[in-house]
C-alpha cells in the first residue's frame, strides 16, 4: 500500500435543498483511494451513493442546491468550496466519470467518434484530426470490435454493453487519475457485466487509475474492488478490505446483506434469507443508528446515540456498531 493517495474524503456531509424539502443524503462519510486501487461503494438505492460522489463535482440536476461540509482532498486540492471553473477543468480531465445509463449521458445526435474526440480536444488540447485518431485508439483500448466503423455510428445503434464501452472510452480519454463509475454494469447482463469488469481492471492496470465504483451488487465488489465501503442511509456502516468485509462481515447490516445472497447449497424451493423491514426515507439526520429498527442485535443505545465508525478486531476493518467489538468474532449471523 505504498502507492500514492489520490482521494481522501473526510467527514463529508451533503445537504440537498429542494423546492419541497431539505435532506441530508450523505452524513459524515470518510474514505480514501490510492492510485491503482479500486474502492467499491455499496448500498441500496437511495442510500446516498450517487450524491456522495457527484454532488462535490457539481453534477446535480438544476432545482437542487447543495451544501457541502467536511473535506475532499483530490491530489492535495480541496474540492469542498472550490470554484466552478476549476471544477470544470477537473471533470472529464483528471477525474473521469461513468454513469449507470449511458444513453442519457451520450448525445443522441452526434457520432460516437465525434463525442470521444471532443473530450481530447477539450482537455488535452489536441487538434481535431489528432483527436479523431485518438478516438480510434481509445475505441481499440476499450476493445470495441470493428472500431473504424463504430466511430461513425450513433449511440442508438449500439447495444447497452457497447454504449457503456463508449462511455468508458470518453471517461478515460484524458487519462484521468481518478475514475468514478456509478453503477456501470447495473443495466447490463451478467455476461456483458463480466466483460466490462474485465475491461475496467485492465484499464486500471495500464493507466494506474484510482477507481471509485458504485454498485449494489456484491458480486461486482468481489470481482474488482480491493476495499469496500458499505453505506446505509447516508452513512458508512462498514469499511475495510474486500477480503475481510465480504468474507467476515461485522456490521449487522453487512451480515444481513451478504447472508441474503442465494448460495449454491440452498435447496431449490427453500425460503430466501433476508432482512426484515425497509430502509428509511431520508430527511433530517436520524438520531441513533439508522439500521436499528431492522437490526436483530440492536440494544437500547442504538436507537439514541449514533454509533461512531470504529475499528474492529480486524484492525483494517471499521464498523459503525457499538456491539461489534463485544463479539469476539462477528461472522455468526444465525437466524434460522
Amino acid at each position, binding site marked *: 500500500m505504498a502507492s500514492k493517495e489520490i482521494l481522501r474524503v473526510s467527514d463529508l456531509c451533503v445537504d440537498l435543498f429542494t423546492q419541497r424539502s431539505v435532506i441530508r443524503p450523505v452524513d459524515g462519510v470518510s474514505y480514501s483511494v490510492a492510485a491503482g486501487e479500486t474502492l467499491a461503494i455499496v448500498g441500496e438505492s437511495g442510500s446516498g451513493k450517487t450524491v456522495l460522489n457527484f454532488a462535490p463535482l457539481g453534477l446535480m440536476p438544476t432545482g437542487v442546491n447543495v451544501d457541502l461540509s467536511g473535506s475532499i482532498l483530490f491530489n492535495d486540492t480541496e474540492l469542498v468550496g472550490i470554484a466552478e471553473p476549476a471544477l470544470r477543468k477537473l471533470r472529464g480531465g483528471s477525474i473521469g466519470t461513468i454513469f449507470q445509463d449511458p444513453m442519457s449521458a451520450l448525445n443522441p445526435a452526434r457520432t460516437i467518434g465525434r463525442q470521444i474526440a471532443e473530450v481530447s480536444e477539450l482537455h488535452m488540447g489536441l487538434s481535431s484530426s489528432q483527436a479523431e485518431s485518438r478516438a480510434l485508439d481509445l475505441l481499440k483500448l476499450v476493445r470495441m470490435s470493428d472500431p473504424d466503423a463504430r466511430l461513425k455510428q450513433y449511440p442508438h445503434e449500439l447495444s447497452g454493453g*457497447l454504449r457503456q464501452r463508449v462511455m468508458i472510452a470518453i471517461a478515460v480519454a484524458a487519462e484521468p487519475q481518478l475514475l468514478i463509475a456509478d453503477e456501470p454494469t447495473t443495466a447490463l447482463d451478467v*455476461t456483458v457485466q463480466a466483460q466490462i469488469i474485465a475491461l475496467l481492471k485492465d484499464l486500471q492496470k495500464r493507466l494506474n487509475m484510482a477507481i471509485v465504483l458504485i454498485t449494489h451488487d*456484491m*458480486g461486482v465488489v468481489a470481482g474488482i474492488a480491493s476495499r469496500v465501503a458499505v453505506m446505509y442511509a447516508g452513512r458508512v456502516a462498514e469499511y475495510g478490505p474486500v477480503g475481510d468485509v465480504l468474507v467476515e462481515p461485522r456490521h449487522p447490516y453487512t451480515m*444481513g446483506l451478504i447472508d441474503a445472497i442465494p448460495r449454491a447449497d*440452498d435447496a*431449490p424451493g427453500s425460503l*430466501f434469507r433476508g432482512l426484515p423491514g*425497509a*430502509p428509511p426515507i431520508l430527511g433530517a439526520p436520524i438520531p441513533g443508528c439508522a439500521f436499528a429498527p431492522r437490526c436483530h442485535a440492536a440494544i437500547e443505545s442504538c436507537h439514541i446515540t449514533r454509533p461512531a465508525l470504529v475499528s474492529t478486531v480486524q484492525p483494517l476493518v471499521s464498523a459503525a456498531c457499538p456491539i461489534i467489538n463485544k463479539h469476539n468474532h462477528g461472522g455468526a449471523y444465525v437466524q434460522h
Partner: protein
Amino acid sequence: MSSTKSVLRVENLVTRFKSVERGKWVKAVDGVSIELRPGEIVGLVGESGCGKSTLGRSIVGLERPQSGRILLDDIDLSGLGGRKLRETRRAIQYVFQDPYASLNDRQTIGEAITEALVIIGIHDRTRQRRRVHELLDQVGLPDTVAERYPRELSGGQRQRVAIARSLAVEPRVLICDEPVSALDLSIRSQVMNLFLTLQKDLGVACLFIAHDLALVRQAASRVYVMYLGKIVEQGTSLDVYERPTHPYTRALLASIPSADPRIEATREVPALLGDIPSPTNPPSGCRFRTRCPSAVEACAVAEPPTVWVGPGHGAACIFAAQIRATEVVPQPEPQRLPQQLSA
C-alpha cells in the same frame, strides 16, 4: 411428476415485430414450446433482448403471436374470441417489472384492487371491502394501505399491491416478468418469499422470468434457458444448474459473479464474449454459434434439434450428448473460427 396434467402449454409459439430495418421482421419468439404444471414455479432465463418478455406478453395476450398454440387446461385460446377469451385468459395474470407503472397513479390502492373485483362481477360493497382486506393480508400488507396512493408506497410495497390485484381474479398462472429486478437487495428476499408462499398456499403456477440466475435456481423447480427467441436448454433446476449441457447455459452460469472475493480472484477471462446478435438477422443453424466456444462448421448448417439427455432435460446442441457424457466442452479446431463462418 410428469404424470400431472399441465395447466398451461405453449406450443411452437412465434411472435414477430416489424424491424427498424424496412421490410424485415424481428422474430422475438421463434417457435417456443413450454409447459407449466399446477403449483409449479418455472424459471425462464436468458440475456436481455432474447425474447423472454415477448413470450410472457404473448401468453397473456399483450402481443399477438403470429402462429402457435396457447392451451390453458387444454383449452386452445386461439379458438376463442371477445368476451369469452377475456374471461378465460384472466386465469393467467402478469406481474410487471415496474410496480409503479403498473398501477394507475390516480387510484388509491383500495380502488385499484376493487376495480379488479368489479371486473370479475363482485359489486357488493361489503364483499368488496372484505376481499380487499383479505388480499392485502395475503401479500403481507396492513389494511391501512388501501387508502394510500401508489406514490406513497415503497417499491416493495407497490409490487405486493400489484400481486394482490392479480390475485383478486383468482388466477391459476402468474407470469412474473423480472418482478424483483427493480427492488432493493434487502427487499428482494421478502418479495421472493411471498411468491414461494403463494405458490404453496394457493397452488398458483408461476412462470418466473428473470436474468438473475441465482434467484431462479432457488425459486424454481424447473428452468427454461432462452437464447435469441429459442429455448436452448430445459430441465429441473438441479439438472440445469448442476449439469448444464448447452454451451450457452454453461457460459451464463460461469458469468454469475460470486460475492466471495476468493472465488472471484480465480476468474480469468469473461466466459462469453461479444453481445447477443441482432434478432433481425439471426445466425444460420445454431443461433449461438457466433459466440460459442465449441462451434464447428456443422453448427452453421442446420438448427440443432433438442437432444434429451435425461428425463425432462434437453439441450439444443449437436454436442449435447457428448458434453453430458464427458462434462468437457469440445474445443474447436483453430482454423475454423466461428466469425469466418458468419460471412
